[in-house]
């Protein structure tokens, strides 16, 4: 059950927040005059998402360790 939750959270955050923010930053950077405030706002979202994904990866390690040792 825990692994299902981890997979669900990771996929929703990656597809719903991380990927759109990534593409939006790339498109903003392609403009002749990129606006730093837009990139800043999108990167904040990026950092929060990456942080949550990092926690989920640690959770994956914990689950794998539990499975291997049980």
């Amino acid at each position, binding site marked *: 059950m825990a692994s299902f939750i981890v997979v669900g959270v990771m996929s929703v955050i990656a597809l*719903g927040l991380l990927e759109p923010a990534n*593409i939006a930053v790339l498109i903003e950077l392609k403009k002749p005059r990129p606006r730093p405030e837009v990139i800043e706002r999108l990167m904040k979202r990026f950092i929060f998402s990456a942080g949550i994904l990092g926690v989920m990866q640690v959770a994956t390690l914990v689950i794998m360790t539990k499975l291997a040792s049980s």
Partner: protein
Amino acid sequence: MSEQSYPPVTQLAMASLALIVAGGIYLSSHLPQHVPLAPAVVLLALSALLLAANLIALARVRGFAWDRFFQVAKWSFLAYVAIGGMIEYVFLRNHLSGGPLVVLTLSLVVFSVHVPTLVGFTVARYYQPEELPAAHAEA
């Protein structure tokens, strides 16, 4: 930066994706044994409802950069159709049939529409109409 108010497209899309993922996990955790379809159908219906609400809310936004939206969303959609097609192929290859196949296929359809919508929205919301004239003036 322009602070035009937008409907909660990202939040609704994430809720919709969460429902789809929950339904997919529920079904795939029971397969290949018999699986009661009702919970998955309810999750799919709720997700589709959120998708419809999201599209309607977005369509009602005045002055939205639809050109920019479609410019990004169409390529994203193409990528997600390819991804969805590969996942569908895996379902068929694993001899999935009947109700679970229908529910998972419809889930893939919602997934393949909602993610490109979200990508297009995230890009288009930061579009400023004066960008092009400024760029031309500079050139």
